[in-house]
């Protein structure tokens, strides 16, 4: 199990509505959530594969920022 953590600008419900179908469609994502109360709008993904690049591409493709939060 891999936990991937990203900083995003997915701020509002309307943004979440755009992101939701994309992430829900990925079969390697077991669980995900966005902490919209946090300043970094942290996207947390529990995934079967350890590949943050795919996630970043998925999110940035529809116009949002997404970068891995460093440890």
């Amino acid at each position, binding site marked *: 199990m*891999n*936990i991937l*953590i990203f900083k995003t600008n997915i701020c509002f419900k309307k943004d979440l509505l755009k992101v939701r179908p994309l992430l829900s469609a990925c079969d390697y994502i077991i669980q995900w959530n966005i902490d919209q109360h*946090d300043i970094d709008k*942290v996207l947390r993904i529990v995934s079967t594969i350890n590949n943050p690049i795919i996630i970043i591409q998925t999110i940035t493709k529809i116009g949002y920022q997404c970068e891995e939060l460093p440890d």
Partner: protein
Amino acid sequence: MRVRDINKERAIREKALQMMVKEGMDGFSMQKLAKAAAVSPATIYIYFKDKEDLIEQLCIEAGDKMMEITFKGFAPSMSFSEGLRIQWVNRAKYFMKYPDQMHFLEQLRHSPYGEKLSARMGEKFKEILGNFMANAVKNKELVKVPIEVFWSIAFAPLYSLVKFHMLGKSVAGKQFTLTDKLMNETFGLVLKALKP
């Protein structure tokens, strides 16, 4: 690859609890916690989904710990005085050993998380104490009163004494230390009040 580290998680949990007790829950944030615990926010998110998840996890831990200590060596079938004495000793021990957890649970009770807490702990407490009371009433060791009245007479005196003890002073700033003798004396009065 992000790896879970039990020691790190423990340190984050402890720091979060301290902060919430000291500064309250409203002003608490994952970013502040990260700074205080000297870890990156990403590290905290490895263990917790968000602030709500963190508070819930802490609530579960503190609640379970309190139940574990409170009911250690206790059975509802015990004689009334023996059962209540064990509860007194256990509750005093919990309060003195884990004051932060105790305050945190107190905070939760007055917050939107209060319902979740009582769903998890309230039923079990009611069941165990309810059985204990029913046995004691049946054996003519306890007057029949509502559980709230029972609780107020049975435990509130202990909590007042322990609070004075933790403060180091009592009414009007008088110096105070809770001794075994004082605790036994008070316990005797409580038993007397609850006898039929």
